[in-house]
């Protein structure tokens, strides 16, 4: 039996107002094995921690129970304190008498009784604790960034600047991401490519950065500090070392009718293509699905015209396997599909477009060379209606429950730019709320109204009705005037909700990083650890974690980089000692535990055992401590009980059950 000390925290009045802490101390002293018990105002304070340390030394304690707030809050604090006094940190258990007791119960008697039981359960558990030693694992000093948009680029640049090698994996042929599709950026109206392109160039030129464009992460194994990642470099069909980026192949390619992804399908591209003029790398890819050579075997024009001889139809996908210490996810977003919003006639009329399509239309390099015109007839619009919150803030199954955050500002930007460039065009915005928190954001929106005369109407649109004359009748509500409005427009622009890139679910699964119901990656703590995934060694950058504008994305990208750098700067990491352990005398070698292990941490070896005098070679399950994350799936699958989990052993949990049911 351990010599146990019990320390009861008042947490000011947080605990003490509802739990009779003196009573808990008194009852603790009556527990077998408890040789010391005391209470204190704030156990987590320096004085409180000293009390624990003094008791450990003076009473020679072998186990400590702290009755306090949640272990998720201060378990590490108290374990570190105990360690400083010479006690193995894993001999400390927490009884959560705040979140699970004082804060939810009002009656002092009831709360005290429960606190005593929780204390007893912790004492019963500690009695069976054994000292555990965290192992060490090495840190590979290289980072992987998944996604080459502004978030990924910024993270990679920051990590590279700190002196660590970093690889960017980007699935499209060029880095740049969504930002490269934008025309201007709010609230300063800088040209998007003018500020993005230099960063793209920096990233490609940085000696510490390797770009894998047209590539995807295929497989991830390992754990924090020591991930092994397979990257599929898709066959580009163009030799990157030979290509000069002259562009002749694209001019000559006869397959010209492929909707351009970069221009959101508003213009066409060729089968061999670079997505846009400033693409990095400036090396085209052959889209094999649409290439005549690949479809029919005949053609080969690009190969004939390429002076550098860079075209290689026989190129194969290549798998690159690399080790990384840290992984940053920066997979970004896309607009939602609008097939569930046919009341806005997006699929019925070419003149109903999304905001991102408008960005392309407004852009000098876009499908209309920057002229604002209707896609149906090329005429200049006179009346434009913007509809906000299309698919955002929805409680039905058509849209997203969240606010997409960026639409209010970009719509103000669009409205302003149109009014500035085409003063004869009337702009109306139907909005539910205008949300402009951010530096100089509300001022920006007010300028749209006050200086540019944009007509903001509070109310949603019910239906966009295409008219026989080609106009669009917008039927909306004006909730301030309490009127139903019918407005004839030439163009309607929908602020469609944004959603995480659909690929992120696959990537999150590979990374064992958690993801919420909206496919946003979950942060380790909403307030205190916003750029870390709960899975150690995985960091989050940009919209993959939640809707963000560019300044926020860049800030978060930097923050994620710092977290990754902090990890890469370490030589060794301590591993979680609460891992599974196989008892060689009990192991059946039946493989069932290996089937349920999500980490491949269980292997089998033929081992000579001495089972009470019987010497024989047996097939024994062996746990790799470095891979085991301590979930315990194996322990329940194991019928003989050979597999047990350190720190949460069968007998420890049963002791808690017994103490509670007493």
């Amino acid at each position: 039996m351990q010599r146990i000390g019990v320390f009861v925290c008042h947490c000011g009045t947080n605990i003490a107002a509802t739990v009779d802490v003196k009573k808990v101390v008194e009852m603790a002293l009556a527990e077998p094995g408890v040789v010391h018990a005391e209470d204190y105002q704030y156990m987590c304070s320096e004085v409180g921690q000293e009390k624990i340390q003094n008791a450990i030394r003076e009473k020679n304690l072998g186990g400590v129970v702290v009755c306090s707030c949640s272990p998720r809050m201060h378990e590490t604090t108290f374990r570190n304190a105990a360690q400083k006094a010479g006690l193995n940190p894993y001999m400390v258990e927490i009884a959560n008498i705040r979140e699970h007791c004082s804060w939810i119960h009002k009656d002092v008697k009831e709360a005290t009784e429960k606190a005593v039981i929780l204390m007893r359960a912790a004492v019963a558990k500690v009695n069976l604790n054994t000292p555990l030693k965290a192992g060490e694992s090495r840190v590979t000093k290289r980072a992987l960034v998944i996604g080459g948009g502004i978030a990924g680029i910024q993270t990679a640049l920051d990590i590279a600047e700190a002196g660590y090698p970093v690889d960017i994996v980007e699935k499209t042929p060029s880095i740049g991401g969504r930002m490269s599709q934008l025309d201007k950026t709010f609230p300063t109206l800088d040209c998007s490519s003018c500020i993005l392109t230099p960063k793209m160039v920096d990233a490609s030129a940085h000696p510490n950065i390797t770009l894998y464009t047209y590539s995807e992460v295929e497989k991830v194994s390992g754990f924090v500090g020591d991930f092994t990642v397979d990257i599929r470099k898709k066959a580009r069909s163009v030799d990157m070392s030979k290509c000069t980026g002259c562009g002749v192949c694209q001019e000559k390619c006869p397959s010209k009718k492929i909707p351009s992804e970069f221009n959101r399908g508003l213009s066409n591209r060729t089968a061999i293509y670079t997505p846009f003029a400033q693409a990095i790398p400036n090396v085209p890819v052959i889209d094999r699905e649409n290439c005549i050579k690949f479809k029919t075997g005949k053609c080969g024009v690009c190969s004939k015209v390429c002076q550098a001889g860079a075209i290689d139809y026989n190129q194969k996908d290549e798998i690159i396997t690399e080790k990384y210490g840290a992984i940053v996810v920066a997979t970004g977003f896309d607009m939602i599909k609008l097939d569930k919003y046919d009341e806005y006639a997006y699929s019925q009329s070419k003149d109903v477009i999304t905001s991102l399509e408008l960005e392309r239309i407004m852009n000098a390099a876009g499908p209309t060379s920057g002229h604002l015109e209707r896609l149906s007839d090329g005429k200049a619009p006179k009346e434009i209606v913007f509809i906000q919150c299309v698919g955002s803030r929805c409680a039905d199954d058509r849209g997203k429950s969240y606010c997409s955050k960026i639409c209010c500002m970009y719509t103000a930007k669009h409205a302003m730019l149109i009014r500035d460039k085409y003063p004869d065009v009337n702009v109306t915005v139907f909005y539910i709320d205008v949300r402009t928190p951010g530096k100089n954001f509300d001022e920006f929106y007010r300028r749209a109204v006050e200086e540019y005369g944009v007509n903001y109407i509070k109310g949603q649109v019910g239906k966009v009705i295409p008219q026989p004359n080609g106009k669009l009748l917008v039927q909306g509500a004006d909730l301030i005037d309490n009127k139903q409005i019918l407005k004839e427009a030439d163009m309607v622009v929908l602020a469609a909700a944004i959603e995480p890139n659909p690929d992120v679910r696959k990537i999150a699964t590979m990374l064992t990083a958690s993801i919420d119901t909206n496919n946003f990656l979950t942060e380790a703590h909403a307030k205190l650890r916003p750029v870390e995934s709960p899975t150690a060694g995985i960091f989050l950058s940009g919209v993959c974690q939640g809707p963000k504008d560019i300044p926020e994305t860049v800030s978060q990208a930097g923050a994620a980089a710092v977290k990754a750098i902090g990890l890469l700067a370490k030589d060794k990491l301590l591993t979680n000692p609460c891992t599974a352990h196989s008892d060689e005398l009990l192991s059946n070698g039946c493989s069932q535990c290996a089937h349920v292990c999500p980490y491949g941490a269980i292997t089998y070896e033929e081992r000579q055992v001495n089972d009470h005098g019987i010497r024989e070679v047996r097939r024994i399950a062996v746990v790799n401590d470095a891979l085991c994350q301590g979930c315990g799936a194996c322990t329940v699958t194991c019928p003989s009980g050979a597999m047990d989990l350190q720190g949460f052993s069968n007998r420890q949990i049963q002791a808690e059950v017994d103490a509670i049911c007493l």
Partner: protein
Amino acid sequence: MKYSYYPGCTLKNKAQDLDHYARVSAQALGFELEEISEWQCCGGVYPLGTDEIATKLSSVRALNEAKEKGQELVTLCSACHHVIKRVNDDMKHVADIRTKANNYMQLDEPYAGETNVLHFLEVLRDRVGFDVLKEKVTNPLTGKKIGAYYGCLLLRPGKVMAFDNPENPKIMEDFIRAIGAEPVIYPYRNECCGGYISLKDNELAAGMCRKIEDSAAGFGADMLITACPLCMYNLNKNGNEALPVYYFTELLAEALGVKGV
């Protein structure tokens, strides 16, 4: 193939055409509509209140009879379809309504939404297939420009009716193509004609009918088709006389060459 068939009161009376042409067309297409034996009027309007039970029972009776026969239940009138489909959904998903309705009904085996309710158009689309229909057309209505008027009852609420995309439906347009005519797509085809209020509020209903018909005519339709006797009545009474309105079954029978049967 045999289906249970719920005609509804109007089809036995003012909308006999809708019913008759459906039956002869069904015969031509090789399926049979077997009328439910003792059907009662569905009430014409779906009682929205969650505590409405008695008003749902006639639908349950029809649904249960189809279940006992092991047949799918086919409807024609938009209102009947709407009411029966929604009551069926309640019986399937709302435990409270299911329990109470079954307590009233005292069936041998409680009814829990087992029957599949199909509109005649859905039979054409999902059971017969518009491709097959097209092959069976002997008298294609070539050159006719037809506007499909869906109205509201067939489409909404989209999740329960599951008939077609409620904001941009195409089943009737596909039907029109199958019988050899040209569909005219116009935005008011899924807007309400105000049928329910046409009894007491002609003015309002008339305004709506005009909007619908003007829009259809504006896009080049020279006739409308509907599945709903109420829409038919309202559009005829309150709408523009220049644009005739037909039951879709009438044109179907014509295309199949069985109109005179």
